[in-house]
């Protein structure tokens, strides 16, 4: 009753408007107007969906901040959380100035957001008559052809994805990384490293063209960023953590490993929940279309895989080490979410649980291998969660995509199928995508690390700073100043002469 009343009211309101616009309407022009109005509504729904999903992903920064801070020590808490806070702004402006244009400058028509098609300049190589995109070339500073609502909405969504990748290395390098080095490195991540690989996969670059050019499935398919976001973050974390070296006291001379427990497990687990919440925006938002009803499948697969990852990690630790370790459960949930990020739109519910479940075990094994064998110190498990499981996610798509979604993906007709559903070449494209990430992002991260070292004079804080904790020497603020030392501190009314470099003051001259 209410509905028909509402519909009648709607007709009464819209009909005079249509009449006024059209003069005396013929029946077919009325139909045209209705169809145009419906198309405009669809675009509006897609806009709102994309933006709201972007807002959810932005809130994942809070999740990362809490996970990384909870998994590190109290004496470094202000430093760790400040890196997570500032990576948002620093990497964002770098991405706004340069990165977005490199990633999306040649993306072509934004189909779900009204079809705006002026981002059309892709720098590419032509080999054997085939075009291979390398990076985009328009949209710097969001000016010129980029100054339009669809591109701005697209930018917002892509920007929060880039920031997710940029905040991954801060966890692996925590408790010993100079804040100045972090700041410069993050500029390079937002401006160059992330956008280049994102262009290859999402911007119409050469990995996306593997299907059209070489007949490898639909090219490298990564629905929401297992490789583009997470593996990129994980590879950057791996390269830079290996170069930075372990925290003091992490590894003994005889090769044995010490545990350095984080200071706030409740904070880390709440952060994990915030990430799992934001992940609905991350994956379901990647349709860029609220009108694409596949979002129901995507969101549900996402929650299933995250739950499966936490459960298998819990069981693995329980059976192997006699206790269901809370920090590994958190890593397991995130590993499941990372792994389902690429295949979430293309797989069945049992496949989603399988993908998440494998991820939960994989992350535990990877943590022990990277820490115990490779002796690369990663305080929060970022390399295992994002790097290893990002790779597992894209390969899982190549195995388990079931051919019910993705018709026309990357310009290839037919739905996306994995090895077990009849298309082995899709798995080959996924493997090439993974290899390109390890090599491409790895080399770029190495170069960025070296450039950063030149700019700020090394990445590592002094040993005495690491012993004292980075909060005061690096940030000038303790996370938890409620101690007798601070309560009794003398606060000078005037700012005294500031000694640059700070560290020199910590160790007094021997008397």
């Amino acid at each position: 009753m209410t509905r028909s009343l509402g519909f009648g009211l709607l007709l009464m309101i819209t009909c005079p408007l249509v009449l006024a616009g059209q003069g005396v309407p013929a029946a077919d022009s009325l139909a045209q107007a209705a169809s145009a109005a419906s198309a405009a509504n669809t675009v509006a729904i897609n806009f709102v969906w994309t933006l709201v999903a972007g807002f959810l992903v932005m809130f994942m920064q809070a999740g990362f901040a809490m996970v990384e801070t909870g998994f590190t020590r109290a004496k470094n808490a202000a430093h760790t959380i400040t890196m997570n806070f500032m990576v948002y702004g620093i990497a964002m402006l770098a991405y706004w100035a340069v990165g977005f244009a490199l990633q999306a400058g040649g993306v072509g028509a934004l189909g779900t957001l009204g079809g705006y098609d002026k981002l059309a300049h892709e720098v590419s190589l032509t080999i054997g008559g085939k075009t291979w995109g390398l990076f985009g070339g328009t949209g710097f500073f969001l000016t010129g052809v980029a100054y339009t609502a669809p591109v701005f909405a697209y930018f917002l969504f892509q920007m929060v994805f880039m920031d997710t990748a940029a905040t991954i290395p801060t966890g692996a390098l925590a408790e010993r990384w100079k804040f100045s080095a972090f700041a410069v490195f993050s500029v390079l991540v937002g401006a160059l490293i992330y956008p280049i690989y994102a262009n290859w996969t999402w911007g119409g670059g050469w990995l996306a063209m593997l299907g059209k050019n070489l007949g490898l499935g639909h090219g490298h398919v990564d629905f929401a960023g297992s490789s583009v976001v997470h593996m990129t973050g994980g590879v950057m974390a791996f390269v830079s953590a290996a170069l930075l070296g372990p925290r003091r006291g992490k590894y003994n001379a005889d090769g044995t490993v010490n545990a350095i427990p984080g200071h706030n497990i409740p904070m880390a687990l709440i952060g994990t929940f915030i990430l799992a919440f934001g992940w609905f925006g991350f994956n379901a938002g990647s349709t860029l279309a609220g009108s694409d009803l596949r979002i129901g499948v995507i969101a549900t697969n996402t929650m299933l895989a995250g739950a499966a990852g936490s459960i298998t990690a819990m069981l693995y630790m329980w059976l192997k080490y006699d206790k269901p370790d809370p920090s590994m459960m958190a890593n397991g949930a995130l590993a499941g979410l990372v792994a389902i990020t690429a295949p979430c739109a293309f797989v069945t519910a049992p496949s989603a649980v399988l993908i998440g479940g494998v991820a939960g075990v994989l992350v535990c094994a990877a943590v022990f291998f990277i820490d115990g064998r490779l002796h690369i110190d990663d305080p929060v498990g970022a390399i295992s969660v994002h790097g290893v499981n990002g790779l597992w996610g894209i390969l899982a798509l190549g195995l388990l995509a079931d051919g019910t979604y993705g018709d026309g993906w990357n310009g290839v007709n037919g739905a996306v199928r994995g090895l077990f559903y009849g298309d082995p070449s899709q798995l080959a494209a996924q493997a090439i995508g993974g290899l390109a990430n390890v090599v491409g992002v790895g080399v770029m991260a190495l170069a960025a690390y070296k450039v950063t070292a030149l700019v700020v004079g090394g990445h590592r804080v002094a040993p005495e700073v690491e012993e004292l904790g980075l909060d005061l020497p690096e940030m000038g603020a303790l996370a938890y100043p409620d101690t007798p030392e601070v309560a009794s501190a003398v606060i000078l009314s005037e700012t005294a002469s500031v000694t640059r470099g700070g560290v020199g003051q910590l160790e007094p001259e021997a008397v």
Partner: protein
Amino acid sequence: MKLITAIVRPERLPEVKAALFRAGVTGITISRVSGHGGEQELQEHYRGRTVVLEFREKVRLEMAVSEPFVEPTIQAIITAARTGQVGDGKIFVQPLGRIIRIRTGEVDTAAVTAVTADAVQRRALTAATS
């Protein structure tokens, strides 16, 4: 019998503990303390203000030991806690009137011999040589 109190740098605690265990001193009480012992103050800058931290974080160890253990205890602490920089801490040695183990009522030397002392020392020595 002596009560030995040592103030050391927090970051030297693992080494001090290992050295004491190797020396057979396995009954130790520790607490986090703040103190000023002549080292230069820490100056920091917070929201534009200069803050001078005159007290620094330290760890205090307290051990009640019988006479034969007094010198080994002192030597173990000095060797493990010394960095050579101002701020390495102090050791205070005081005479003890009586010691009573609450569980058994044992007194004095019998009361300070930890039940697990041999096992703890053996483990510490094994860890040091491996």
